[in-house]
């Protein structure tokens, strides 16, 4: 955690948007998240792997071969971390203090 209570795992804009999306869904599949974040497939996999490593999301694979799909779901830990991070961002904004 940084001085302002910001979570470095979530702070990257792409990961923040991914966490926001998953916090307001029962889950989302790879194609939907990729379309929303407008990033490449490899970048999305990388970002989501970071979030999964921190225990903030679960990655689920369904099926095998060309028809296989991947979906994501936020965990309880992730939901709490996102809420705290968002609160920290809003607090910084309210203070209007530049962050180093």
């Amino acid at each position, binding site marked *: 955690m940084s001085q302002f209570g910001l979570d470095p795992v979530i702070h990257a804009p792409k990961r923040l948007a*991914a966490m926001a999306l998953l916090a*307001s869904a*029962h889950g*989302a599949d790879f*194609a*939907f998240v990729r379309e*929303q974040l407008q990033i490449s497939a490899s970048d999305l996999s990388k970002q989501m792997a970071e979030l999964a490593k921190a225990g903030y999301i679960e990655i689920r694979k369904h099926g095998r071969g060309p028809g296989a799909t991947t979906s994501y779901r936020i965990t309880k830990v992730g939901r709490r971390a996102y809420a705290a991070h*968002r609160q920290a961002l809003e607090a910084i904004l309210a203070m209007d203090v*530049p*962050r180093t």
Partner: protein
Amino acid sequence: MESARDIEEALHQADRAAAAPYIDYPPIPRSYLVVTGLWAVCFCLTFAIPRPGPLREVAQLMLIAVSLALTRWYHRHRGTWPRGRAPEEIRRVKVTFVIGATVVVCLVAVAFGLAGPWVATPVAVVVMAPALAWYERAYANAAARARARLG
């Protein structure tokens, strides 16, 4: 160094992403209204199945299973399923829908109580079809307004 503008932009992007499960969805299949209408007709008619015997309950359970399967299919087709606080525009439509659905169920129940399933069934179709068509249109308009607001 990160400016207030950067944080505002990040929060705006987060708000847009949070709204996505509600406002970004593929077109509803045209068969939706017909299938829903048929389902309602079948469900109403199950009450005409005479008792004793488990046939009525079996038919109703099968119809509930069909509706769950269709919901599951649509969930996959959509790629996500929203939960939690919806954007303001969608919330208003949902509140109206809940009130409208309660009125529809009450009307069908009254028709059923007064005249039985053979009258309740056409009443269900006549009341449900415009209500569902309104809901689909209102939801689509609300989603478009939310998309315009969030960019």
